């Protein structure tokens, strides 16, 4: 078997079909194959034979492991800039949303939305630069397709901003809509500028003269259209004057203009009736182009229909259509206009069409559903949904009419956050997304962080710092315990003790301390003395660690020839009975040189205690050593009992 099929669960009623089929590059899987998931969207395919071959331990096979992972667009260097920069804006947005709970913060949201758009713009520019410099055809094509993706993202974001985030005075959307059309579908603009610059009479000789004039009218740039008409050689004729007059006298609505919508509507309708009567008087019959302009400005459907084919999409004429049919349209009234424009010419519906239509119809659920289909790994859907959510403009009901808005937002953010956590470097960005979605996000972060590969202490410390920042104390501890175990397996006892203390883990501290004590019994050298002598309260983490610390202190005292204190410490270590079993021999034999010192350092009571312990644990010492110790103890007892007896007498 050298192909494998992964079928995805497709919702929305489409028939379940194999999503994609990948041909694995090797024929090495003639036997059975198996598959295991790795961290994130990664899995490994490997040959797996059912029969255990006992003889072939050294023979090399052709078996290969195939690591398979999702190719993530956002991980390309240029788009990583977008990911990082937008992360900053996203986090500012979360802060602003927090502040908005107390006071209205719409202006801040608009600012952040514009920031997002400028990030997209920079990204497009970067992609364009890269595409022009790219020699490789395939790479170039990839870059060009990324550019297309981000163009449509920019376009939709802008429209969304107008429809939901921007503060549109009086809700009269027309000026904003025209601006959107001009910005994203600049058509004839350059020609117009060129013609006006040249300022030559008789410009109609230029082949795209009329297209340009019409284009300007349709984009609502009446002034430019009039200026262009002035360049026509027949501009002094009555027909031209008539059209110019009509264009000039068009009422323009402004919220701050001092007239009510009703008044404006009346004057506007009056103006259009006048235009209509001019048209029906057939004075323009000799100038079909001027007639067309007049038909457009009275909002004649068939006129729009006739020019539709000159444009690549219906978005180009949307602004003009609204302008000349219902300039007072409010934000939620654009659905009809969109339907009218889209219906002017049968054309295959593109994805962008669907998105813009849904947006103008105010169906945000559909919009989000559509933008999730964009192959940008969810960047757009996540950020747009989040900002709409915080603006309070999103309200999505499921089929049981329960509000699932915040669940939708959370699920998108969680998905996006998890995707980024897969990346070696972008994990910290991913974490900040997950952390903004408590409690589920933090639980996920916990699971992923614990499985992050840690190559160096610097990375471990950074993971711990990030985990603590978000209150994931458990992760911080488990990373420490992990580091401790790693140091321990490498035989680096100082490091192990240090990480155990850092993680405040009693169990890890005990393991490390046992290892240190065993190391001492085997090599007669106490490891990590610098650490043990300076450690503070962390020593109390475990009994074994405490014992190790005290024992180390005993060594220090002995080395500095403070035998009295050393002896006291040793006796307390012996009598406390926290010493591990394997260490008793060492501990008891350590008394030997002190027993034999010139000045007696153990009191008779101490000696009795040591004797008791020796007899209780005589099995830990071999016979000769035990005898030697017994002898030393007896001799010490003899001289101390005598001396103490004297002392007692004197005291009396």
């Amino acid at each position, binding site marked *: 078997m050298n192909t494998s099929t992964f079928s995805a669960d497709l919702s929305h009623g489409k028939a379940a079909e194999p999503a994609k089929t990948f041909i694995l590059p090797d024929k090495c899987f003639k036997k059975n194959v198996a598959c295991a998931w790795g961290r994130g969207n990664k899995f490994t395919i490997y040959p797996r034979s059912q029969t255990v071959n006992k003889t072939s331990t050294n023979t090399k096979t052709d078996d290969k492991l195939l690591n398979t992972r999702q190719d993530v667009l956002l991980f390309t*260097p*240029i788009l*990583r*800039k977008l990911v*990082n*920069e937008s*992360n*900053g804006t996203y*986090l500012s947005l979360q802060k602003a949303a927090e502040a908005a709970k107390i006071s209205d913060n719409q202006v801040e949201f608009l600012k952040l939305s514009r920031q997002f758009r400028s990030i997209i713009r920079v990204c497009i520019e970067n992609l364009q630069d890269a595409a022009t410099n790219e020699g490789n055809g395939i790479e170039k094509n990839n870059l060009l397709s990324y550019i297309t993706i981000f163009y449509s993202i920019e376009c939709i974001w802008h429209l969304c901003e107008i429809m939901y985030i921007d503060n549109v005075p009086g809700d009269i959307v027309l000026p904003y809509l025209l601006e959107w059309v001009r910005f994203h579908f600049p058509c004839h603009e350059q020609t117009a500028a060129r013609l006006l610059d040249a300022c030559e009479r008789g410009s109609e000789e230029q082949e795209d003269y009329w297209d340009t004039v019409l284009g300007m009218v349709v984009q609502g740039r009446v002034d430019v259209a009039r200026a262009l008409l002035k360049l026509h050689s027949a501009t002094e004729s009555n027909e031209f004057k008539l059209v110019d007059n009509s264009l000039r006298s068009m009422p323009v609505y402004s919220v701050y203009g001092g007239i009510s919508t009703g008044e404006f509507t009346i004057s506007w309708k009056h103006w259009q009736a006048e235009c209509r009567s001019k048209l029906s008087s057939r004075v323009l019959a000799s100038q079909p182009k001027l007639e067309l302009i007049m038909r457009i400005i009275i909002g004649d459907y068939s006129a729009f229909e006739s020019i539709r084919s000159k444009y690549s999409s219906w978005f180009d004429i949307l602004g003009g259509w609204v302008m000349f049919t219902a300039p007072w349209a409010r934000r939620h009234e654009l659905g009809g206009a969109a339907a009218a424009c889209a219906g002017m010419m049968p054309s295959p519906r593109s994805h962008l069409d669907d998105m813009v239509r849904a947006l103008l119809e105010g169906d945000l659920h559909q919009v989000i559903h559509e933008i999730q289909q964009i192959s940008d790994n969810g960047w757009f859907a996540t950020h747009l949904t989040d900002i709409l959510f915080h603006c309070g403009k999103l309200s999505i009901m499921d089929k049981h009419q329960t509000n699932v808005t915040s669940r939708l937002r959370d699920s998108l953010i969680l998905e996006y956050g998890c995707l980024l956590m897969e990346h*070696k*470097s972008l994990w*910290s*960005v991913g974490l*900040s997304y997950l952390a903004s979605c408590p409690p589920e996000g933090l639980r996920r972060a916990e699971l992923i962080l614990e499985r992050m590969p840690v*190559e*160096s*202490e*610097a*990375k471990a*410390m*950074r993971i711990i*710092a990030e985990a603590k*920042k978000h209150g994931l104390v458990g992760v911080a501890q488990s990373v420490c315990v992990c580091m401790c175990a790693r140091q321990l397996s*490498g035989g*680096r*006892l*100082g*490091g192990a*003790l*240090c990480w155990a*203390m*850092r993680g405040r883990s009693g169990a890890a501290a005990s393991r490390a301390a046992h290892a240190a004590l065993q190391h001492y019994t085997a090599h007669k050298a106490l*490891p*990590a*003395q*610098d*650490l043990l002598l*300076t*450690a*503070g309260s*962390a020593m109390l983490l475990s009994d074994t660690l405490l014992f190790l610390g005290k024992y180390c202190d005993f060594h220090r005292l002995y080395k500095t020839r403070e035998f009295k204190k050393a002896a006291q410490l040793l006796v307390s270590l012996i009598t406390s009975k926290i010493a591990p079993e394997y260490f008793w021999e060492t501990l008891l034999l350590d008394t030997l040189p002190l027993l034999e010192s010139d000045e007696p350092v153990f009191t008779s009571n101490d000696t009795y205690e040591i004797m008791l312990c020796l007899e209780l644990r005589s099995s830990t010492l071999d016979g000769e050593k035990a005898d030697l110790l017994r002898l030393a103890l007896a001799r010490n007892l003899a001289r101390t009992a005598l001396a103490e007896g004297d002392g007692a007498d004197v005291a009396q």
Partner: protein
Amino acid sequence: MPLEVQGTFVSQKISKIRWIAEDYVETKCFFTGSWDDDVNSVKVWTFESPHEEDEVEYPRQLSEYPVDGDVTEMKFTEKNKIAVSLSNGDVKILEVSVYEKQSPLREVFHWKKLHNYREEPCSCTSLDILEGDIATIGEDGNVNILSGRRGEVMHSIKGADSCSLHSICFIKHNEVITGNIRGHMKIWDLRSTNNKPAASFLLAGDELAATCIIHHPTQPHIILAGSESGSLAVWDLRMNQFPTSLVNAHSMGVSEMQFHPENPHKLLTCSVSGELWDWNMEAMTKSSKGQDNQVTWMPLEDKKAMMVNSLIPTLHKPINSLHCDKGRILCGADNEAVYLIKNFKY
């Protein structure tokens, strides 16, 4: 002129950033070293205005030198030679051409696996330079002294620490101070052969790492250390082993500190919490003269009295490195961006 901050995203987490000194003109080029990426690299950049009339300058990459592991520290041994320590235990000296900065970096010396746990890799965590000599430290707890001119290991202190070392600084030609992951500081006399520190003391009681150490540019007996907890400690090595002062500064670890090269009263610090601060240290030295007419350091009471300014709005990600040249400060951060701060008054 007001402070100007300008960030550029570079698609790699920056662990170290360094201006390349120029002789008679304003610095334009700089080094960056990256970390925590699939393939890390040392890069050379220059500031350029894309359009003639444009005031704004953007960094443009001149050359790239991929390395194994993370870049952990970069410091100049000579004007155009930089020593780079890596998390795979290697140390390299790279040379950038003086006149043709876009030509690839040339490797001058390469110490392979200078720090190691025998077979296992071990990070070389930091290095410091004094007059061409390089002192390196690693997670293995060893200190190595290298000659940047001859390319040999001159001296090494095996097992200088039982834990991993994280910061180092030359005090004198024959003396270095190291800080470990627990904040245990040790002073080493490089002439002695007994592998025992000349002095040792603790940074603070919290057992957190000493992340960076520097000495005062004009009074080398004054040592400053930054802690993983974000606090800043100052020692006068002539006085005693306890810090003269310990200030709670940043809210998370101090990642790098630098005294302004032209004005020793200015200290710059950056932190894991994403802050970049400028400290006015004048208040510290203004106190009465000591017995032998030497300036003594005042204990710091709190940082408010210290005149601390924040130079950029707090970033959401750690700032790992800073480097200052006259009125221009560079910093590199974990949000895969480098920032240039212009018109800094010093």
